[in-house]
């Protein structure tokens, strides 16, 4: 099979980009979308042209590095699948496929299809962790966790932080990502001590980065490669409201250490 690609090419942050059309060589349907781009890039490199820059790492759907909006849907045509696990057999011979970067003001485009997702790291650093002493692993089952909660927490922990939710949202809102991170820890006993501080810190950082707000359209959950649901956004909304009502804790001189 062969397809025509319409790829967003942009030299760097400050240069405006444009779409360029590329005819692929003969492809194998069992190639992943990224392998197809590798083949196209090989051709470009052989001709002395600049290869198409795109993000990828594990290529097995667990790292969240691959991105791409493929024909209007982040991560391509399937549900619950990342771009690296999208295969060319999902397309027809002769298809014209638009390949665009994730578009959002906080996801600045670095080059071609590569965008800067450090804003997600900063949100995580604001509170997406628990403060514990390191050392020997604690006894298993020393802290009981209700099975329902551990299942839900695992669902939230599936989030690979790829940013497809932002890419799909008409408002470029990051609430699905932040909600997954907030709920994942908020559902577990280990996350309780910092639960309300966490949600405030992470939402504050999310707002500072310039993401939009949720309009409950549901496109984020529809494109999420890990099928994270809007239930988690409701959970975050609830925690944030409780956190606001509780107020900020009394400041302690020296940070209380």
């Amino acid at each position, binding site marked *: 099979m062969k397809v025509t690609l*319409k790829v*967003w090419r942009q030299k760097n942050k400050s240069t405006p980009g444009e*779409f360029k059309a590329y005819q692929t060589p003969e492809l194998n349907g069992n190639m992943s979308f990224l392998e197809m781009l590798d083949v196209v890039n090989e051709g470009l490199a052989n001709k002395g042209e600049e290869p198409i820059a795109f993000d990828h790492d594990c290529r097995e759907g667990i790292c969240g590095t691959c991105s791409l*909006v493929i*024909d*209007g*849907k*982040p991560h391509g045509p399937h549900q619950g699948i990342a771009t690296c696990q999208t295969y060319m057999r999902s397309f027809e011979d002769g298809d014209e496929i*638009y390949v*665009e970067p994730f*578009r*959002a*003001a*906080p996801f600045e485009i670095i080059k071609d299809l590569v965008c800067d997702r450090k804003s997600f790291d900063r949100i995580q650093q604001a509170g997406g962790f628990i403060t514990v002493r390191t050392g020997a692993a604690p006894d298993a089952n020393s802290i009981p966790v209700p099975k329902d909660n551990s299942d839900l927490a695992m669902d939230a922990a599936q989030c690979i932080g790829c940013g497809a939710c932002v890419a*799909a949202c*008409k*408002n*470029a*809102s990051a*609430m699905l990502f932040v909600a997954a991170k907030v709920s994942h820890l908020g559902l577990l006993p280990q996350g309780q001590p910092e639960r309300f501080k966490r949600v*405030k810190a992470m*939402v*504050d950082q*999310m*707002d500072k980065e*310039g*993401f*939009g*707000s*949720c*309009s*409950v*359209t*549901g*496109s984020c*959950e*529809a*494109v999420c490669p890990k099928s994270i*649901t*809007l*239930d988690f*956004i*409701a*959970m*975050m*909304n*609830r*925690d*944030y*409201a409780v956190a*606001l*009502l509780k*107020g*900020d804790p009394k400041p302690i001189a020296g940070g209380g250490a």
Partner: protein
Amino acid sequence: MKIIDRLFNSSLGKKYLMAISGLALFGFIVGHLVGNLQVFGPPELINGYAHFLKSKPALVWGARLGLLAMVAIHIVTAVRLTMENKAARPVQYAKWKENGASKSSQYMIVSGSVILAFIIYHLAHFTVLLPFVNGEGDFTKLTTVFDGHQVADVYAMMVIGFQVWWVTLFYLIAQGLLFWHLFHGLSSMFQSLGLRSYSWWPVITKATKAVSIGIFIGYSIIPLAIFLRIVGSDYAEKARHQLHAETVQVVGSGKEAGK
């Protein structure tokens, strides 16, 4: 205080404001519907109700000011959110799919704007009684006697008002958009306030959709029944004399009766 700052300026806080003000407006919409449906009873029913409201100015003005505050919060926050959301996606995609987003969820600001235009018209039409917006005449001339008092003939105003085809059409369009707004907005309100879980969400979406359909039917049958001359056409004929009379006359026992 941080809580006030976060309520008005954080993304989640603004969603709470939308949801709470939307809920208050929805509460009014339900109460107002129950009041208006009295037009299907005898004229004395709705005229008595209107007279009762007029006789409680503190209650009416309290509710009006509260509603005005809610409308202001809802609109100001809607505009702020819409602008921020636009700014978060400065460059649009060349090829775009809706990816599961319903049309009503994408056009809340559009349906809201038509509702706003309607609210302004509706106030001019039936509250301030501006004569040039109703296509008929000076509605302040419509009076009747209720319980020994001379009162505004709200029933006549309605049955005359909705015989004008373009008034009825505009009301129906506005109700259609209100329905569209609520079809998404009501369930979204639960989401914004965090009142949702895996087991409740299907119930919430179905129930809120049913309620928005109910509101649409309730509000639409009023102008429709009047326009189709099912309700109050005889009364409208009689009351219309009052409207076009040179001097104010009162159907029934005359203006002096109430004094």
